[in-house]
């Protein structure tokens, strides 16, 4: 692959997301969810957060809230 092509590909945007945890919930409970409801996840506050591209795990990290935004810092790469 030429350098020019590689540069073009490297500039492609990728959707990333940070997963906090997972939960399996019955439809009945899902229907009953409303403002104020509490949903318990399968993770602990001390666990790392997962950085994903689609379903592909890229790494793990920590989050902190800074001025209403979330700063995600990588602590481990996949």
């Amino acid at each position, binding site marked *: 692959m030429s350098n020019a092509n590689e540069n073009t590909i490297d500039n492609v945007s990728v959707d*990333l997301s940070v997963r906090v945890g997972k939960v399996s919930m*019955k*439809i009945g409970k*899902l229907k009953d969810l409303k403002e104020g409801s509490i949903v318990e996840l399968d993770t*602990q*506050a001390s666990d790392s957060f997962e950085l994903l591209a689609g379903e592909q795990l*890229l790494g793990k990290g920590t989050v902190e809230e800074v001025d*209403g935004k*979330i700063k995600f810092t*990588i602590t481990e790469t996949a």
Partner: protein
Amino acid sequence: MFIKKTTSAEFESQQQAIAMRGFASSIGSKICALTRGNLSIPMVPSGKLDLATYTAKEYIENVSPQIKYKLGVQFDESSFIAIGFDSEFLSKCSYYWAGGRLNAPEKHGLAKATSCEIAFLRQFMQLIHPVITEELNKHSEVTLEISELDDNGVAFKNDQRVQVNTVNCTFKEEVVKLSIITSDGVLKYCNLNSLDENSTKISDKTNLSELNVNLDARFEIFKAKLGDVKNLKVGDEFYIPTSEVSLINRSDNSIIAKGLLGSDDTNNQLIQISEKR
């Protein structure tokens, strides 16, 4: 794995037989109630419905002559629906109706109707005619006219089948039979599936609320250049514009709800829902 093979005619016939069950059950119950209320015969439906399917030949030669009295409607040259009963039904009911309280005397199926039976037959037919009309019209888009039906005039096709649902009815020590008869093709004119037990939705029979959905809790999606992703290393930072967390259905990535992240006394991660989609 073997897949059962069937012709489309057989399949339609089976579908029709299934569709008839609710209708037959409903009409059987109503005729019994009318008979109790108006003719003082304490008739109740009993046991399960019996379903039999016959070729047109079997039906015309063996079944139809037994079910001597029929009320119904013929939709086209070969499709009809009828409610019928045999000489035994007439004999036993009329005997009780006329005051007989011992077992009704046995009577040969082809014997002529007595004057008492004819009188009962007239009353019984008048009584059930409007009910059968009403019941059939619940399932039809056009208004159906019910009359005594002579199925000798039906031009059966080669592979046509006739389904007979039999409702057993009892009073005192007697058991009599009501037959609900359809020939293939009736469902085109009369949707027997509607309003009957077969129209019950699966959600009425199965508790779908118990099904599990797998959800992800994720912060809002953000974008990065592929080049940056390829070179990710410990210490790299990304900023996500909002602290809101979405509950996402993993099967189709749809957002079910949004909320704020927190934790409880035992450090379990929690989401407090702020918006339900």
